[in-house]
């Protein structure tokens, strides 16, 4: 029984469905509007909406603000919606032609930058690409919303300077309208936040101390522009090392920015050249 329950819950979790909120203008008719019908169908905008994949919902009664919710819609399919009004004569419903037809497309979105597996730091430009019909995009880091309803071109400056080094998951959702539940979800892109890079070897390091310790004589260590390194650094080896801040995601060239450094910085042996660093 426990195993079966786990299966059910897993399957349920995999089924994402959304609710569409429909609204339209009330129709005034001297004979009295007896109700409205909502017609919708999947994967086709060609009326009439009947047959396989089509549904009709009868909404008896009049309202100054007619509306309804339709739940259980599958985001993997497009849906086209229309509304009719009707009067009742001798128990027969006399129905209008369709209203304007609204088609909600399948929304797709993907993270186009940074690339999966990238080493990033400082301020990272995260960019998404979304399909036609997308109103806005949300960005998430480790599932936590960063920027809601971002308008095109769907680019977000992700500040990693206060983050611990390590792996982070980036994802996005594309939304159909400002308040909509209708969304498409991207695949997750994993990146690693690092603090330094050795120019000669191309190797990344999660701390500046690790980069210094591993550096050979004459090496250049590059730090991200706009990053903030909070470490107590001990340069105690008999070697010459250049530490340069202000690099962008391209590594190099230096983009003219600076890198902030907090904590103690002790030089016990050798030579350390600091360039474009702001000591706080």
């Amino acid at each position: 029984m426990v195993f079966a329950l786990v299966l059910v819950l897993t399957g349920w979790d995999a089924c994402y469905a959304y609710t569409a909120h429909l609204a339209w203008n009330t129709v005034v008719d001297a004979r009295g509007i007896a109700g409205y019908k909502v017609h919708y169908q999947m994967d086709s905008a060609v009326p009439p909406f009947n047959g396989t994949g089509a549904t009709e919902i009868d909404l008896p009664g009049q309202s100054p603000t007619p509306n309804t919710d339709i739940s259980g819609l599958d985001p993997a399919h497009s849906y086209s919606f229309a509304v009719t009004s009707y009067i009742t004569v001798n128990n027969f419903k006399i129905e209008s032609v369709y209203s304007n037809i609204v088609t909600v497309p399948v929304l797709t979105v993907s993270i186009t930058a940074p690339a999966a597996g990238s080493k990033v730091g400082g301020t990272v430009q995260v960019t998404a690409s979304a399909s036609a019909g997308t109103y806005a995009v949300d960005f998430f880091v480790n599932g936590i919303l960063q920027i809601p309803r971002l308008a095109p071109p769907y680019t977000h400056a992700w500040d990693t300077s206060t983050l611990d080094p390590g792996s982070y998951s980036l994802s996005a959702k594309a939304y159909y309208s400002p308040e909509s539940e209708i969304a498409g979800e991207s695949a997750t892109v994993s990146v690693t936040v690092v603090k330094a890079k050795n120019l000669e070897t191309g190797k990344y390091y999660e701390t500046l101390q690790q980069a210094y310790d591993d550096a050979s004589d004459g090496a250049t260590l590059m730090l991200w522009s706009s990053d903030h390194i909070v470490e107590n650094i001990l340069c105690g080896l008999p070697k010459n090392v250049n530490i340069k801040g202000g690099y962008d995601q391209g590594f190099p060239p230096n983009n003219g920015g600076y890198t902030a450094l907090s904590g103690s910085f002790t030089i016990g042996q050798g030579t350390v050249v600091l360039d474009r660093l702001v000591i706080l």
Partner: protein
Amino acid sequence: MVGNGTYQGFMIQSHGSAGLPILFKAQSNGANITTRNATTSDGINIESWGDTPSDFITVDGFNVYNQPRMGIRAIGGNGIVIKNCTSHNNSSNGIFSGDTPNIQVLNNTAYVNGSSSYEHNIYISNALSDGAIVRGNLVYNSNAGNGLQLNGDWEMGGDGFIDNALIENNIVYGNSKKGLSLISIRFGRIQNNIIYNNGPAAGGIHLVDQGWQNFSTGNVVVNNTIDEPNQASIRINDGSDNNYIFNNISVGTKGIVFEGGGNFQSNNYSSDDGSGQFVNRAGHDYHLLQNSPAKSFGAASYLSKAAPSVDLEGNARPQGAGFDAGAYEFAEVPLPPAAPTGLSVR
């Protein structure tokens, strides 16, 4: 509640009240009464006995057939209701009542009943049966008698009249004798009935006396469709007077026949063959065609007698320019309302 199955008939000698009638109801119309009850030769018998009137009894949904006498019989009770039953192939009347004030016979099917011209598919008899309602029944192919008969029957006592009966929305056809035989009835309404192809020597609706007395009078015969190719669609015998005949459709060469004077008719649409009037006369679909001459041929009222406000199917009258003749009001198709605008989805 009686479950589906095959049963012996039963006899009722008890009574309810107007607010709390006693109901005998068949489940899903699957209770078949195939043998007579233990006391009389009938399937279901509701019988007042001495000081025990069988008032306010309702029998609902039984199938009664092959009885040695009547299918369903009710004697002497007030407020009896027989509805949704099927009664057929019984040796005498299919559904019969005698001296039953305010009886209601509703939505039953009665066919192939009776063995003589005195035995009918449905028969409401005797002068105490005032206020009878016979509505929505399908009545056809009686063996030897009429489809539906009401008879005040002065020989059986009382004033010899059935007063204020309402006979409406019935479909009556193919019976051996008359479709509706109305003997000694007063102040009744016969409306929205479909009547066709009854006995070649009988006809559709017959308002008549009994033995030259107790003439049928003061009745309103309105908005019926009667297709009787062999005999009169409506026949009122000499002496029956002050009957009001209007808004009917009569098909057949004999038409509406007043054998005597003192009756009134207006706005009846008569023709020999009904051509151009009906959706399918041969198939007995008597709905009117779009361009039927019977459309708007009727009147809202005639000599202070109002036409019914709805037709056989409950559709409102009038539609279009005026009241249609016959049992069906042509359903004019109104313009649809405007389509909604501004549909948005979020």
